[in-house]
């Protein structure tokens, strides 16, 4: 996975020049990142596209947003920077003071005030943003491009503030005096709690802004992410209104997350996952769980990092790294230099610590953007994230109960859990009831591997005995049915090993990359299944399934015959969702080719 095009361009890109041009100098916040030039370049790309480039809202609008958020978070470094910049843009001191004190008194036009209020709300408590808030901005005359830009500027403010909390650079300007802390000033907790806003979303769920179709063929950055992720996450699709901002983000993401010269991708994805959990951002939790699986972690391990990384199999040092990131990402005011020193004592180098800080900043950027745009999930969040298991502080019940733009941690109570508990305490009747519920699923998982009915029946017996023997070890981290399928797969694979000419389940993905374009392009009958008896159709489908490569067969059977969700199939097979989607499509297309000769308008008679 790489962004070769970007790396080449990176050599010609001078981040310091970007800041000199945009600010007139290089801020100390940027200089503090010199140990890792590629993250400095990523920061420059973001600032260049978001802050410096002329967009739908003016530079002064943007600086006002940045300053208000910095003041709200009492980030002395950023508020000195932003008030210095506003002053250099010709904004009178008195207006800057007003912004610092309590912005409603600032001499602003009502639309400008509405925009600031929106951005502050998003920065303080992203999950309270609703579609109505977007509508209110439109009513104030803001175009969708401007709203998108304001959301991205807010996200950038949090990127900067996260960096500044950790890097504590010397201010570039003399910091202005802030009024004493008032109640309304953001505390860490208020970023995550929603004191009064429990309004449901009215009108539209999400995404809040229109996103014109942008083809990966004509917009290469999307093709790159499609290649690296296996699909284009909604996170990026939702921003196509502004391809320039999208491109800068994709480049920053590539420069920060993909190289493995200091932190590994697993370490970085784990940071993104745990900080997103702490921010209650289920969209980002789901996507990073999936990416971790794509990096070779088992589904259980990835889920465990989300539920409580302290109980995962990560090393002591990695757990400390995640604690560091969560503290920085969510309890920034408690953060101090000692936190970084703690990591150093565990053997982390200067570059690794810097990288973890930048990844945390990027996470807060993405979490804010996702909530501000109401981006819909690509996948269901991991089913194990039940609220009682979440390692979170704060009043989550309110958050849970709220029908927000993003469902915060879908609670998926496994329907089997009660019977499982009884079976675990030795109740045979409960066990029998459980396996009867899932006999068809187990059998289909078995025959998908063994391709022989008698063999699958024998393996069914092995599976049931093995399930009973091991049920005490089932910890409820996945659904019980998922666990049963994994027992069944083991039983089937054991049998296969006894056979000659074993069919490999793990053929290399590259082998399958030949064209899956349709060869049969004759139109099909209107209701093809009505021209054949049910048993003819069933035989035809069964024979078609048996001739599919094994890795497609099991996925088509679980998804289309057992009707499991793509996410459940991914869990059961320990695959990423994109991998399941790819194989499912290929399996379906191969079956289509198989069925076509029997079902086109020119085909007649029986299914032979």
């Amino acid at each position, binding site marked *: 996975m790489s962004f070769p095009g970007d790396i080449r361009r990176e050599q010609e890109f001078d981040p310091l020049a970007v800041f000199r041009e945009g600010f007139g100098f290089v801020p100390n916040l940027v200089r503090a990142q010199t140990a890792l030039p590629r993250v400095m370049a990523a920061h420059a790309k973001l600032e260049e596209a978001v802050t410096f480039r002329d967009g739908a809202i003016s530079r002064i609008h943007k600086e006002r947003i940045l300053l208000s958020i910095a003041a709200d978070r009492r980030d002395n470094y950023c508020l000195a920077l932003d008030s210095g910049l506003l002053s250099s843009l010709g904004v009178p001191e008195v207006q800057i003071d007003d912004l610092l004190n309590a912005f409603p008194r600032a001499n602003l036009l009502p639309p400008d005030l509405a925009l600031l209020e929106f951005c502050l709300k998003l920065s303080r408590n992203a999950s309270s943003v609703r579609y109505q808030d977007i509508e209110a901005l439109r009513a104030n005359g803001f175009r969708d491009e401007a709203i998108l830009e304001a959301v991205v500027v807010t996200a950038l403010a949090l990127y900067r503030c996260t960096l500044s909390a950790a890097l504590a650079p010397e201010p570039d300007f003399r910091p202005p005096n802030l009024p004493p802390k008032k109640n309304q000033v953001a505390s860490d907790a208020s970023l995550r709690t929603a004191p009064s806003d429990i309004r449901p979303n009215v009108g539209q769920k999400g995404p809040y802004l229109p996103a014109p*179709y942008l083809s990966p063929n004509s917009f290469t950055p999307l093709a790159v992410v499609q290649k690296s992720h296996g699909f284009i996450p909604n996170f990026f699709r939702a921003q196509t209104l502004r391809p320039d901002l999208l491109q800068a983000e994709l480049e920053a993401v590539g420069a920060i997350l993909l190289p493995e010269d200091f932190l590994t991708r697993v370490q970085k994805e784990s940071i993104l996952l745990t900080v997103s959990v702490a921010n209650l951002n289920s969209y980002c939790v789901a996507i990073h769980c999936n990416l971790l699986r794509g990096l070779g972690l088992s589904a259980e391990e990835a889920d465990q990092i989300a539920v409580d990384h302290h109980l995962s199999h990560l090393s002591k040092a990695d757990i400390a790294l995640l604690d560091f990131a969560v503290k920085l990402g969510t309890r920034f005011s408690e953060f101090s230099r000692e936190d970084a020193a703690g990591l150093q004592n565990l053997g982390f180098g200067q570059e690794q610590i810097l990288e973890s800080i930048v990844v945390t900043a990027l996470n807060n950027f993405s979490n804010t953007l996702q909530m501000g745009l109401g981006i819909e999930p690509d996948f269901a969040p991991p089913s194990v994230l039940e609220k009682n298991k979440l390692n979170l502080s704060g009043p989550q019940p309110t958050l849970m109960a709220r029908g927000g733009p993003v469902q915060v941690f879908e609670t998926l109570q496994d329907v089997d859990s009660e019977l499982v508990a009884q079976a675990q305490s030795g109740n045979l009747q409960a*066990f029998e009831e459980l396996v009867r519920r899932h006999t068809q699923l187990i059998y289909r998982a078995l*025959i998908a591997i063994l391709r022989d009915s008698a063999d699958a029946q024998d393996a069914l017996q092995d599976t*049931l005995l093995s399930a009973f023997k091991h049920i005490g070890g089932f910890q409820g981290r996945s659904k019980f049915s998922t666990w049963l399928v994994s027992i069944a797969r083991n039983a089937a694979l054991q049998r296969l090993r006894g056979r000659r000419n074993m069919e490999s389940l793990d053929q290399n993905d590259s082998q399958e990359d030949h064209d899956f374009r349709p060869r049969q392009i004759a139109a099909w009958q209107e209701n*093809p299944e009505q021209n054949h008896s049910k048993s003819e159709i069933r035989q035809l*489908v069964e024979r078609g399934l048996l001739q599919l490569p094994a890795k497609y067969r099991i996925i088509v059977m679980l998804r*289309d015959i057992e009707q499991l969700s793509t996410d459940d199939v991914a869990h059961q097979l320990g695959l990423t969702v994109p991998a399941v989607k790819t194989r499912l499509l290929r399996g379906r297309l191969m*079956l289509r080719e198989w069925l076509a000769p029997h079902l086109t308008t020119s085909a007649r008679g029986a299914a032979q």
Partner: protein
Amino acid sequence: MITCDEFFAEFADYLENQVSPEVRQELELHLSQCRVCHVLYDSSRKTIKIVSESNSFELPQKVFDPIIDRVMSKLRTERS
């Protein structure tokens, strides 16, 4: 209008009903004008329906009952 390649890139998500309204609009415009993609889409949808409703590899109760009974009696014997 988008090309067949672009249509195909979105095809998996379209079959699963997982595309945004904007993407859907583009895809449907393409479908209305491209016979080959239309056949591909129509027959793929029918394939999914046929496979889903085929009851393939359903194990009849008269086959699995004795298997479960055998397992349960084995477990009961082991217990006593």
